[in-house]
């Protein structure tokens, strides 16, 4: 469970202060599938960085699994990211000259997991992300966008994280491939009960989640359950 209490983030460039985030408070329970939605410049990226422990808030408290992580050092934050958070990025961010399996194993290398269990966990994660077994030893730059994003999802799942954080995961994909990726998220949520936070600026994509937090100019303007939730299985 994660909880934000009056989170604010202020950037200071010279004498000018920019309030990227003002007094954001909300709670996300385990097993929820939440979309954070807003136009560019709304502060959703800042919020994502804080939720993903890449950054700390200027003020307020961020409780991750009951621990206050808002005052931790860089290396302590890295430790939390390594153990409890899985990231999926818009640009996939795979290592281009490494095989699929090695890309998925990367977080476990930093976690110090030894070779055998590392490989087992990576294969397991690839199966969960519905990535076809025939491509496991391909180089990641030989894959299509949709395939790459599923490798990235597998990499996000490999350390069995508390939270999967997806930043515009369909932004670089065409509609149909985007739907395949969204389907993967919905299945992960439904079948494995993962907590997923999806950051997007598209209403259509956000409606695949259970709940949408709208953010504009650094403030939360709406936080509600999705009424007519889109289910990918029906659309494909």
């Amino acid at each position, binding site marked *: 469970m994660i909880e934000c209490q009056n989170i604010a983030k202020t950037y200071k460039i010279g004498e000018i202060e920019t309030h990227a985030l003002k007094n954001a408070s909300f709670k996300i329970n385990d097993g929820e599938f939440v979309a954070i939605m807003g136009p560019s410049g709304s502060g959703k990226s800042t919020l994502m960085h804080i939720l993903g422990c*890449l950054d700390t808030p200027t003020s307020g408290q961020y409780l991750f699994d009951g621990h206050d992580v808002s005052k931790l050092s860089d290396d302590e934050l890295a*430790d939390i990211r390594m*153990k409890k958070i899985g*990231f999926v990025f818009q640009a996939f*961010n795979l290592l281009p000259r490494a095989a699929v399996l090695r890309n998925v194993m990367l977080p476990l*290398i930093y976690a110090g997991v030894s070779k055998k269990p590392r490989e087992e966990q990576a294969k397991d994660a690839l199966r969960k992300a519905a990535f076809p077994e025939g491509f496991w030893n391909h180089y990641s730059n030989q894959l299509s966008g949709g395939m790459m994003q599923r490798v990235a999802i597998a*990499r996000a799942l490999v350390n069995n994280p508390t939270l999967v954080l997806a930043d515009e995961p369909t932004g670089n994909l065409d509609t149909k491939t985007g739907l395949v990726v969204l389907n993967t998220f919905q299945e992960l949520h439904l079948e494995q009960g993962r907590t997923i936070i999806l950051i997007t600026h598209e209403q259509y994509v956000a409606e695949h989640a259970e709940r949408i937090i709208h953010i504009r100019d650094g403030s939360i303007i709406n936080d509600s359950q999705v009424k007519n939730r889109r289910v990918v299985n029906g659309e494909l």
Partner: protein
Amino acid sequence: MKLADILQETYTALSSNKVRSGLTILGIVIGIGSVIAMVSIGQGASGQIQSSIEGLGSNLLTILPGVIQPGRGIVSSGRGAAQTLKNEDIDVLQGIEGVAYVSPEVQRRFQIVSPAGTNTNSTVIGATPEYEAVRNVVAANGSFIAESHIRSMGRVAVLGPTVAQDLFADSDPVAKTIRINKINFKVIGVLQSKGSAGFFNPDDTVFVPLTTMQKILAGVDFLSTIAVSVENKDLMPQVQESATTALLVKHRVDPQNPDFSIVSQADIIGTLTQVTDTFTIFLASIAGISLLVGGIGIMNMMLTTVTERTREIGLRKAIGAKKKDISLQFLAEAVVLTFLGGVLGVLLGWIISLAVSSLAGIATSVSVSSVLLAFGVSAAIGILFGYYPARKASGMNPIDALRYE
């Protein structure tokens, strides 16, 4: 992060850009290779000089007339000008404890003519039978000057191999007659070759009895040099001390201002090694500059790599890599580059030094210490020049790094 994983990452990173890695390694290879080669040439030269001087007799004290001026060294001592060494000094020296042989010598250059009319201008040394023992010369053919020749002022000569070759080509000179300064001498022996000792070629000499030299050829009563061989090496300083005292008394001169000098082989070796050491340091420091340039090449490549892989660094940090993991990874890349460069450089330097000794005839020696030094220096360069890029990489903010285009 485990060591095996760091090495795997390093291998992937370096092999993905083989040309660039190869060129960077080449910089280190040239640097280390030239250091190894230069030091081996310097050390080889000093070893050669040392052994050729020791070949002349390592227990040798050389007494020269006149004074070696401080600061002017042995080479420019102006020997031969002074006439202060006399035949009486020989007996004084022979009485000193620890002295094995005393070899008085008179040196002049004369024109020498063979019966066939070929001639040469060589050093003629008036010597006694002790010369053979003191200077380690061996007669290859015939015999050396004997005591009876000295007493009878015999007109006999022993030829160095170069002179024998010049005058008689391949025929046997023994029992032939040569003319030195228009006086007939019978050849009684030819010496074995000793090789050049740098400034003086003992093969290009003719030996005649000391008395013949002093009374007939040169018409002098003084000596050019007295060589003294000491019973063993440990007695050298002691004998040098007593010889100085004895000669000062005999010559009745002020100890602050003696009219002779005593030089030991150790002094000569010391002076020459000083010269070759300076030479070696000079060569090595020139080579060191190319090593420095190689190191800068490493740093340049690592900085480029860090910039190119900014997004990758951002990703690695996002999925849990700590500062230490990132800096270790980049440091490992730099160290592996320099280490490979070091190994190849040692091989290259070795090949160069072998080529130099076989093609140019200069003795070289690659010592274990210079190889170890090369490895140490190359690893140190990797750490030194890899540190800044690695720190730059590890200090990146993951958010900015992920956004980097």
